[in-house]
């Protein structure tokens, strides 16, 4: 039984904005899934619908087999980081967590524990307005861990973190994963979660456009063959007649479709001279951007 089961989920804001469009996925117990997509793709809206903050226009959501609002003491089952700025600036970090602990029936001693876990014990008594972005992000993570939940939903936890903070976050997520928690972590930058997640869901303009193990992402990716030739124009026409996608810039061609040997043979057939011929594998990031539709296939 999946921990989270989302089926045909849609959300419309007003008449115009279809923020989430028929999204379905399931999170298995103990899985770490990256929820990727450019800004405005619908990640935050989806996460907020899972925890009943936003009402779906259509579709169904099951969290631990039921609705989030029907979970008794939900903060001990699910930890959601949705907005690192969700703290009163005048309240101390310890009190901010104290309020949440109190309302969830979590013992007050747990506050000090989680603050230590995110290395904020030194700043616990200080007002949140004096915290740096990274400290706020860690406070939000501490808050998420208060109830020691089995499911973590983290919306862009790496936002605003410096490289050291990012490294800290990766270690943090791996430690939680080692504890067997189910994690869904969103990001608009693949590199932020690439080293942490096993599976990815890629969302673009509200629709899921790819899903599966991270490793399978580049399986369907076609490499780009690049070449330089004094007869570039002639060769371009020849390749295009055979169905390849070709972009030309001066004497340089970028070709999608045929492999490098096939391109070499084609050049020989039409008598074009090659000065350079290489195969370029797109990076995972390029692929992600391409799948997510923020960038046209590279020229």
């Amino acid at each position, binding site marked *: 039984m999946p921990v989270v089961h989302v089926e045909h989920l849609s959300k419309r*804001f007003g008449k115009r904005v279809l923020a989430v469009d028929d999204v379905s996925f399931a999170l298995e117990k103990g899985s770490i899934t990256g929820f990727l997509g450019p800004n405005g793709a619908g990640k*935050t*809206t989806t996460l*907020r619908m899972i*925890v*009943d*903050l*936003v*009402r779906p226009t259509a579709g169904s959501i099951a969290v631990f087999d039921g609705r*989030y*609002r029907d*979970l008794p003491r*939900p*903060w001990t089952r699910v930890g*959601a980081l*949705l*907005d690192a*700025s*969700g*703290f*009163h*600036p*005048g*309240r*101390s970090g310890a*009190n*901010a967590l*104290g*309020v*949440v602990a*109190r*309302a*969830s*029936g979590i013992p007050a001693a747990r506050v000090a524990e989680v603050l230590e876990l995110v290395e904020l014990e030194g700043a616990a008594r200080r007002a949140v307005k004096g915290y740096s972005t990274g400290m706020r992000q860690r406070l939000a993570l501490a*808050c998420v861990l208060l109830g020691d939940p089995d499911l973590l939903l983290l919306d862009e936890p790496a936002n605003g973190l410096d490289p050291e903070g990012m490294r800290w976050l990766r270690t943090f997520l791996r430690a939680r994963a080692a504890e067997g928690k189910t994690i869904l972590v969103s990001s608009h930058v693949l590199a932020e979660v690439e080293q942490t997640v096993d599976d990815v869901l890629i969302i673009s303009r509200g629709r899921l456009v790819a899903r599966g193990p991270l490793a399978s992402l580049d399986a369907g990716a076609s490499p780009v063959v690049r070449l330089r030739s004094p007869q570039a124009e002639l060769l371009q026409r020849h390749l295009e007649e055979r169905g390849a996608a070709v972009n030309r810039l001066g004497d340089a061609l970028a070709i999608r479709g045929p492999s490098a040997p096939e391109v070499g043979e084609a050049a020989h057939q039409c008598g074009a001279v090659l000065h350079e011929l290489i195969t370029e594998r797109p990076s995972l990031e390029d692929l992600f951007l391409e799948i997510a539709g923020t960038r046209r296939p590279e020229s």
Partner: protein
Amino acid sequence: MIDLVAAELLKLRSTRTALGLLIAAVLVGLAPAVLILIFAPAEVLEDETVGGFGFLVTGVTVVPLLGLVFGILSMTNEYRHGTITYSYLVTPRRARVIAVKLFVCFGVGIVVLALVGSLVTLTAIIGYEVRSLELETSFLFEDGVAETLALVLLAAGLMAALGVGLGALFRNQPATVAGTLIWALAGENIVVSLKPAVGQYLPFAALQQVVTGGVTVSTGAEVGLSRPEAFLVSLGYIAVVSIAAVYTTMRRDVT
């Protein structure tokens, strides 16, 4: 529920908003009393018709208005700072979040008015003693005074609760505070003076009448609602606003 009340009280204790308003309430209540005690001539303070005591509590009548602002702030602060997200994550049954806030602010409104009232009474006793004047207190023990006092305290609680309801309904802090105060202090007065028969039923006029028992119109005539009537009308407003607040809050997206 007890956990939620405790959390709400921790919210109040852990920022300066509540403390600031408490200090303001004490100052607003005490300052006129102290000034009057120092500067008013003896015959005014010993006047038996108005009762010198009647003058001394002028500042106290402003305290429920601060309670109203307190209620609005305690709700709208959650939207303003985004803490509402955590409140609803922890308690997804949103009606409970609002109900607990209504209840806590209602209690705080009563306690603060009782506190300021007691401080003013204490100050009066000391002031009269210092000036060797006779403080007329016998009217405090007349029939119906205890009941009136109870209604006044409850009305102060209702003001704070009304603030919570309005805050939940409108969410925007500056607009709700400004709009409510302008309506309460100016808007209703205009209606009351033009059409007292209608005006007497308006929410803040009703709450005011719980304290004053009726309204005095420009002709000097006393019209309006008796204290218990005014209290029931006020209660009706709180109920309507609270239900509307819960109804809209349950349907709104928190983004």
